[in-house]
């Protein structure tokens, strides 16, 4: 079991080295607003997967920390909040269009692959609702996971042992100063 888990972890670690993210942060009424985009996304694989009738998934991960100070700083920084918005994409053969469904139940249709890809790999001005203390020394950790073929139950147990479809960017640390 351990070997299988280790193999999975190694595969995931290898996958992490590939894509990178572009990001920007803003504050709206004290709450953090983030924009993330995947640079050099696996567009061909995504389109191939969609044309096969499979669904794809992009998960944007954002964590906001406040730096710990003082005696107990060794315990680690304080997690202020985290958000993981998810985009699901499928190709609607009846309508001949690409459909993105967000975890906020929003549905967006795209007539062309180009417009679909531009939207699918980017999270624009996402209001996290995470309050950022003005005086605090805060930073954000961001990462994007791409699942080329979203597995359906019970096949999803494959991902526990062999995360074959997933790739993820490394966590990027960005200081937040507004």
């Amino acid at each position, binding site marked *: *079991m*351990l070997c*299988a*888990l280790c193999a999975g972890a190694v595969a995931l670690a290898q996958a992490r080295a590939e894509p990178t993210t572009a990001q920007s942060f803003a504050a709206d009424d004290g709450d953090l607003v983030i924009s993330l985009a995947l640079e050099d996304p696996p567009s061909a694989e995504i389109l191939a997967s969609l044309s*096969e*009738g*499979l*669904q794809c998934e992009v998960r944007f991960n954002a964590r906001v920390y406040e730096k710990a100070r003082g005696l107990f700083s060794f315990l680690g920084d304080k997690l202020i909040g985290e958000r993981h918005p998810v985009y699901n994409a*499928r190709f*609607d*053969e*009846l*309508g001949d*269009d690409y459909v993105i469904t967000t975890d906020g139940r929003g549905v967006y*249709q795209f*007539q062309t692959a180009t417009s679909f890809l531009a939207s699918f790999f980017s999270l624009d001005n996402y209001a996290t609702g995470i309050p950022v203390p003005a005086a605090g020394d805060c930073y954000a950790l961001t990462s994007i996971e791409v699942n080329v*073929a979203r*597995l*359906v*139950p*019970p*096949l*999803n*147990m*494959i*991902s*526990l*042992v*062999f995360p*074959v479809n997933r790739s993820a960017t490394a966590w990027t640390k960005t200081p937040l100063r507004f």
Partner: protein
Amino acid sequence: MKLARSPGSSATGLLSLVLIYILLIILILFFSSQVLQDISKASSLTNFIVIPLAITLPLFIVGTLVVNIVRLVRERRSGQPGFRFKFRMIVFFTFIAFLSSIPQGILSISFINTTMGSWFSTPTRSALQGGLDVAIEYVNDKLANLASFSDSAVFASILRDVDSAPDRFWTNIHEANPSISSVQVFRDDGSEVLFRGDQTARIRTGFRLSGEEGMLPKESNGDVSVLRFLKSYRGANGHYSVVLSSLLPPGFDQKAQALTASREIFTQLDRFGSLFRIVIVIFFSIFSVPMLLLSILVSLLLSEEIMRPIVDLEEATRRVTEGDFSYRILGRSGDELALLVTSFNKMVSELERSRLTIMQTEKVTAWQEIAQRLAHEIRNPLTPIKLSAQRILRKSQEGREELDRVLAPAISSIISEVENLDKLLKEFRDFSKLPAPELAEVPLRPLVAEVAETHGAAYRDVRFHVEEIPEGLVVRADPGQLKQVFINLLKNAFESIEGPGDVYVRADLVRKGSLQYCRIQVQDTGRGIGAEYHNQVFNPYFTTKGNGTGLGLPIVERIVFDHKGQIWFETEVGVGTTFFVDLPTEQ
């Protein structure tokens, strides 16, 4: 009386294994109900508990198993009883566990393969794809119908009525193409001019027209989907955008999506099927291997439980063989071996009683023999004393001159015999009143060398060898008594050699049962002991030497016994004699 019972750890161990078994069952149930259904539903809390459990439980079982196996190997190396039986039990249990798990495994994997094979069956796949193709074709037909009608001359002639007679406009469209569900006309600014037909297909406010002719994106309204075609027309009163709509049957989209989802599952099975089989086998192993290891652990504990009374019996038998008749076994009530244990304890009690009786009888006999021999030995010098005294008396009556002549030799004889008597009584006292040994660490080689130097000086033709006593070998004994043992044995050895010869003293550590002994050998190249004397060598007052008291070897035997040791000898007439002394290294 010593009562012995092995520490009982099996019950606790079995209880722990039952607990682990229950945890494994819970894990399996969780796995089948959560992970197999939808892994995303497994909460982080359950993962926090379940994943560490899933990793630590097999590790714990493996660790416990390794510890038990190491213990078993140690038992084998130390020659502890019951190893073979335990080993057989474990092999047997493992074999049984394999026998039951292998068919289960084969059956499960075969079932998975067969089930997945049926999932992949071509009719299902082609049926799903066919259904989806039919749906797409139906939609495409509708779209083609809309497009061809919009571009037709009929529609172009109908369009003339759009601003003059809107009702006729709709009636004509519907008569020309009954599949059209509605028509909606907009001005360039997006304001609606007219709408006729099914309200479901009506474009609500906020809809922005692109202005380009052609198909519009499919729109879903509740469970109804609408297909639309945009046609531009310049009429008498201005420019219009005419939207022709066609409704798909209610639920058409949902059914098509269900078909798409099913096809997605089959596509995934097709793509990841082989990987899924491997994962199934891995997860099957994750849960079946710990179960197998658990059964081996159970076999270890059960074999321990079964073997314990047998090992106790073996231990008790050995202790009794070594002379410890006070050893008893505590039998457990309800134990099948309790009867055997009770019989054994009874037998040892009887043996002890018989031994005490025999010892008492032997003691009386020995003392009778000693008394007779002592009387004999005392009587021997009394005769010359008496004769000397009578001679002195007789000569004193014959005159002074005669008395002077015999007085000195007679008195010398009396003194000599009295000295012999004194020596005899002194040795008897030593033999009968040996103090209890006061144990101390005695370095063996220096002690033997000292004795040989002191008592072997008179035997210049005899070579003495202590090289085979390991340097630093220490014996736990009473130093004075041990020295007496070597004095007596070495004196016997030196005196048995006529002319040149050798005396060897060797020592080594030996193990008998669970006890370790220091084995000392005193070997001479003397005349040996005749077979007729073998049974009398350790008897008090038995001697083949003219000036011997016959108490040297009995004293040695007594000292060795007092040290809980053993003494025996090997001899060959004309070759020599070796005395063996075993002294326990731990008391």
